């Protein structure tokens, strides 16, 4: 497939405005500025684009809700807080193709009649901040940002807002809290941010990759766009592949490419020709799959049928040398650290789960621990403001469902079935 999101990024100067324009960049913006805002929204709707941040909500529908709200100003926020372990798909856009994102945001702003935007960038990407700020400066200088963009009377101002190390701020309402200068904690919905968002005004929060798809939709039209990928989830998708594969990295492929193709055809297969043991398909919060589940198309429709989720499209591959109890423990340590503390089931439950996993991993597991883990996980599920608690619980339930033998071996033999000679430390 021809690359669009990662087009030209092998070029060392790909982040510069000159190179971007030279490769045809900002052509879609010029086209979009001739279009009525409502026509752009209709085009995005017809294209069938679904949000690439993890939830997969139809972007055109979100825009439609926001555009029907008569309150102004409206804010457009790019969610560049990719903090999910395994996920690094937005990084190449942020660091190597920033003008694609800016172009996508200006077109979106025109469609939504928003005059103020922010890129909420995770604090852990200091290099991306430098690149983005330079790109924004270049775009202002060339009139792609400002009060009168390309002389068409459309105004849009954009700046980078750097987060400070809180995974929860990837959740859109927590992100809004954070941009307002508060502790990033999720808000109860409704009202939804499209009506009551940043500073109480209509606010559209879209992922980096979602916004980077907009210029393509405008340039080739909804019909052609919908031919990429599969009919229920069209378009190109970035997959970040990591852990035990020969060629980890970010791959741009049609949505619906199977997990098997991603691992074996693109990422070079399991490292050292070892045996595939398990795959997390969409970032650490998506339930783990066994090798017999990898024939599945990677999209928002098919993965849920296999008991997992597409999430951010972050494929983590584990071979037979990896202790999955340890992976589960480390994942839970992450969720415990990142729980914002607002909801008791998540705040207390993630710590309790981590504690039990730690003792199993360390060779001190007790009979009944597996049932206890399941009981706690089910007591978190569906009882929190945001999906962080559900994600943490789903991880534990997924590992136990598919790899209960490994957990049992740890508890019964007080050691790991992978590293049989040693009791691994937690």
């Amino acid at each position, binding site marked *: 497939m021809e690359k669009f999101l990662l087009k030209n990024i092998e070029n060392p100067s790909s982040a510069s405005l000159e190179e971007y324009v030279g490769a045809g960049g900002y052509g879609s913006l010029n086209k979009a500025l001739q279009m009525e805002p409502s026509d752009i929204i209709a085009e995005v709707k017809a294209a069938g684009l679904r949000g690439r941040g993890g939830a997969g909500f139809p972007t055109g529908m979100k825009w439609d809700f926001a555009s029907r709200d008569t309150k102004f*100003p409206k804010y457009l926020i790019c969610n560049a807080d*990719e*903090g*999910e*372990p*395994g*996920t*690094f798909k937005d*990084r190449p856009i942020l660091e190597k193709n920033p003008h694609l994102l800016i172009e996508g945001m200006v077109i979106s702003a025109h469609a939504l009649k928003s005059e*103020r935007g922010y890129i909420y960038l*995770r*604090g*852990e*990407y*200091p*290099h991306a901040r430098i690149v983005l700020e330079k790109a924004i400066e270049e775009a202002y200088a060339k009139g792609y940002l400002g009060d009168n963009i390309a002389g068409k009377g459309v105004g849009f101002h954009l*700046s980078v*807002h*750097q*987060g*400070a*190390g*809180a*995974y929860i701020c990837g959740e859109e309402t927590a992100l809004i809290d*954070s*941009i*307002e*200068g*508060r*502790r*990033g904690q999720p808000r109860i919905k409704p009202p939804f941010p499209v009506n009551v968002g940043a*500073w109480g005004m209509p606010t559209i929060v879209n992922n980096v990759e979602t916004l980077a798809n907009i210029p393509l939709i405008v340039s080739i039209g909804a019909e052609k766009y919908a031919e990429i990928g599969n009919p229920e989830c069209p378009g190109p998708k970035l997959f*970040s*592949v*990591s*852990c*035990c594969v020969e060629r*980890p*990295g*970010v791959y741009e492929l049609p949505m619906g490419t199977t997990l098997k193709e991603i691992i074996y055809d693109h990422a070079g297969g399991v490292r050292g020709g070892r045996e595939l043991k398990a795959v997390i398909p969409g970032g*650490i919060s998506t339930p783990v799959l066994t090798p017999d589940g990898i024939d599945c198309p990677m999209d928002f429709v098919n993965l849920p049928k296999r008991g997992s989720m597409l999430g951010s499209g*972050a494929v*983590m591959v*584990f071979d037979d040398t*990896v202790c999955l109890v*340890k*992976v589960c423990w*480390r*994942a839970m340590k*992450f969720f415990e*650290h*990142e729980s*914002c503390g607002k909801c008791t089931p998540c705040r207390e439950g993630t710590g309790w789960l981590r504690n039990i996993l730690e003792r199993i991993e360390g060779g001190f597991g007790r009979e009944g621990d597996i049932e206890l883990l399941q009981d706690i996980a089910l007591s978190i599920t569906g009882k929190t403001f945001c999906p962080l608690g559900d994600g943490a619980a789903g991880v534990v339930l997924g590992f136990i469902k598919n790899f209960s033998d490994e957990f049992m071996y740890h508890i019964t033999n007080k050691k790991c079935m992978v590293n049989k000679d040693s009791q691994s430390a937690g």
Partner: protein
Amino acid sequence: MDIFEEIRALTEKYPDRRGALLPALYVAQEDAGWLSQEALDRVSNALNLPQATVKGVATFYSMYKHRPMGRHLIQLCTNVACMIMGAESLVDFLKGKYGLEPGGTTVDGRFSLVIMECIGACDRAPAMLVDTDFHSDLTEDNIVEMLEEYK
């Protein structure tokens, strides 16, 4: 421009002054390497926000530091991908080589070490940030070479 003015200038990007709080805390932190009570008070004065508001926000986010750091801050990721690729042995290695514990600072004040939750470089694990520089594909051999650049 002193940091008071720099912080005041940040408010232009937001509809209200509180919006500038996170970037203001970064400005104050860059000034001294950490956020002392005096630095928090300065942010509070510049943005005209209650001290409790400023402290409440500053303590929520993990990248704001509340005690003095070494001259160079090592933020090493040990999350799943980095763990599988050997980050834990690097933690032990730093302990042995520099006497550097997670959350600690070397005796000579050269390095501080913070364990980080996912640095977004899982394809090049294990990875770390030293100050704002990114380093990946770390091993016991190359980490020393990389750290030698920071005096």
